[in-house]
């Protein structure tokens, strides 16, 4: 339950007083008193609408909602339909109250996300810490984060250990442990220990600033459904108002029907002519869906993307960093003439100068200190590997091409992954298998996609055939494209786009590193993680903050539900209005029904849209 604000409490009190006055008027016998009470009841509830409509009419705004309600109720007074005049105003304000309350609720789910804005940073200067605005901190500065404080800027831990609550960023409530050399994202909350950070980027490029910008701009890209309904409502109100005027004047003047009857019918039209139920019903569904996605750690850049996602026909996953963790590990050592330890040692020493992920994994597996003085000569051959002289022996560490180059007798390996062959003095010593681990939810993601009817799922990678098939099999993907260079990835997407043309939309999911052109080539580009490059996040339409591929089927399911609800709301609002208009023209709809067709429909549409905010999608 939201706390009511002051304005809402006042409205509630006014509704109560007005209702009480109306009821006592209905019970009263004395005619003059009765009319007095009706007018009092009307003014208590309606003065705001009356004042607003006066203001708007001075600006020449005749199709304003307040003005229409004022005319309708004053007209009802004029034809002596006192209780109905009061009731229309009373229900209108009550409906507005519920509507505002519900909108506030969905608004809060989105603005809660914006609470991640940090207020200050504790900047470490030569001798003390000072509190400054995050915007003034520069890259390379040191900041301190005490337990309970929000991390103001992205940085690397230089001192201290702690657990971080990243739930406002990723939706994941389990705290994450950090230690020196770990990266910390702004917006997370430091739970347990004091941390010292070296700031990695200025505030306006930080995670927090990027999320806030995304959230603030989400609704600028409107879905087609939203635009249709807005356009419809622009015509709807003037047309209904013109009909109302014709209805009030023509039948009595030309056909001699009673004025009172036909003015009543016209008043029904005026009440139903208000556009807000229509204009609210659809955008609110999208707002709620965007809020719900954000709660689940998915940032969608606009309603139009949700609309497109609901029509997903094919999903293409990138392999490394998307379906796999992107962390390489030595998974097997196959020595020929040495011990496993010695084979690993040679490889690790030879690769000790390189920063390549493969080299890092070798060094990590070896664990011992490497004496670089053992290396007397070193040469890196791009696309092949490394040649070095270690302890006076000629060592070659690299792929099969390097082995061929030296005419070493190497052989294949059955295991999947990247194979690093080792030769000493041109004699084959064996190989080391390095592979990337599949993410825990990769297979589940593919399964869930198939479950919602998306069967065209493929994986592309620049990696070798064996590594690609190994991961694809575990994930349950049959359609695999491997050994692709970056431009070939983009070409693959074009072909895919062509093949599903007219059937639906193409979604690409990548880790955001080096795949900006591919992301931009898909109908909907999804990038993983906020740690991806800035350009990829700009090029993508959806950002999954916690790196989980299983968020893709979840998002598609949400988008389908959103579109369903938006369409329900649109159909419901339009059909109820049309029915009441027809009934009103025939003289069988009362003002009571008319006011329901206006605010009742709004409230129901809002309640329907709010279903999207439920935790479970």
């Amino acid at each position: 339950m939201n706390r009511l604000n002051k304005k809402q409490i006042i409205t509630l009190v006014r509704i109560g007083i007005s209702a009480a006055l109306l009821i006592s008027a209905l019970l009263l016998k004395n005619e003059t008193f009765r009319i007095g009470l009706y007018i009092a009841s009307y003014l208590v509830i309606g003065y705001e609408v009356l004042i607003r409509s006066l203001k708007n009419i001075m600006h020449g705004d005749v199709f304003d909602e307040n003005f229409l309600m004022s005319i309708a109720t004053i007209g009802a007074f004029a034809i002596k339909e006192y209780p109905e005049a009061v009731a229309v105003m009373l229900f209108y304000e009550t409906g507005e109250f519920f509507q505002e309350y519900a909108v506030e609720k969905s608004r809060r789910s989105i603005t809660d996300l914006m609470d991640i804005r940090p207020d200050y940073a504790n900047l470490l200067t030569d001798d003390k810490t000072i509190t400054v605005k995050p915007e003034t901190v520069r890259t390379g500065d040191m900041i301190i984060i005490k337990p309970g404080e929000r991390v103001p800027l992205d940085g690397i831990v230089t001192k201290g250990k702690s657990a971080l609550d990243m739930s406002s960023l990723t939706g994941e409530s389990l705290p994450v442990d950090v230690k020196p050399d770990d990266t910390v994202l702004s917006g997370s909350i430091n739970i347990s220990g004091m941390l010292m950070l070296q700031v990695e980027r200025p505030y306006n490029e930080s995670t927090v600033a990027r999320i806030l910008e995304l959230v603030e701009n989400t609704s600028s890209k409107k879905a087609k459904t939203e635009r249709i309904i807005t356009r419809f409502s622009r015509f709807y109100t003037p047309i209904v108002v013109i009909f109302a005027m014709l209805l009030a004047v023509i039948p009595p003047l030309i056909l001699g029907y009673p004025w009172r009857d036909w003015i009543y019918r016209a008043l029904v039209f005026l009440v139903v002519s208000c556009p807000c139920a229509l204009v609210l019903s659809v955008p609110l569904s999208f707002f709620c869906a965007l809020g719900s996605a954000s709660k689940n750690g998915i940032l969608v850049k606009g309603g139009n993307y949700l609309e497109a996602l609901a029509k997903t026909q094919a999903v293409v996953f990138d392999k490394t960093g998307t379906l796999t963790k992107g962390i390489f590990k030595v998974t097997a050592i196959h020595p020929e003439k040495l011990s496993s330890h010695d084979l690993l040692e040679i490889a690790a020493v030879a690769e000790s100068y390189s920063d390549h992920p493969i080299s890092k994994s070798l060094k990590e597996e070896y664990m011992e200190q490497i004496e670089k003085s053992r290396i007397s000569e070193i040469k890196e051959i791009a696309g092949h590997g490394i040649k070095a002289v270690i302890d006076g022996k000629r060592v070659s560490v690299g792929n099969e091409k390097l082995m061929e180059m030296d005419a070493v007798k190497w052989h294949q390996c059955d295991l999947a992954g990247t194979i690093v062959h080792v030769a000493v003095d041109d004699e084959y010593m064996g190989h080391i298998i390095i592979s990337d681990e599949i993410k825990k939810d990769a297979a589940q993601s593919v399964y869930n996609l198939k479950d919602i009817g998306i069967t065209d799922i493929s994986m592309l990678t620049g990696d070798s055939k064996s590594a690609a098939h190994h991961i694809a099999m575990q994930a349950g993907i049959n359609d695999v494209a491997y050994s692709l260079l970056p431009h070939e990835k983009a070409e693959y997407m074009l072909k895919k786009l062509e093949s599903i043309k007219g059937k639906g939309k193409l979604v690409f999911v990548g880790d955001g590193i080096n795949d900006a052109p591919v992301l931009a080539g898909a109908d909907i580009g999804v990038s993983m993680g906020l740690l991806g490059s800035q350009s990829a996040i700009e090029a993508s339409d959806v950002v999954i903050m916690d790196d989980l591929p299983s968020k893709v089927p979840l998002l598609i399911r949400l988008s389908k539900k959103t579109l369903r609800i938006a369409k329900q709301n649109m159909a419901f609002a339009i059909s109820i209005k049309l029915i009441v208009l027809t009934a009103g023209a025939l003289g069988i709809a009362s003002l009571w029904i008319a006011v329901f067709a206006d605010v009742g429909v709004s409230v129901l549409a809002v309640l329907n849209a709010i279903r999207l905010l439920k935790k479970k999608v």
Partner: protein
Amino acid sequence: MKKTYKLSNLDCPACADKIERKILKLSGIKEVHLNFIIKKASIEADSEEVFDKSEKIIKMHAGDFEKE
């Protein structure tokens, strides 16, 4: 130049749409966007004059606002 405004009294989506359309008609306007949910307007234009006119339109339909 881009300016953003907080419109605390913006409480009807049809009004947001109306303001947006009216501002869009001003000459010299580059971009205008009203976000009904977070109650914010962002306007991009070249001259102060356009901002003044836009502010008048906002004031007329949504009452008081704050500059950000």
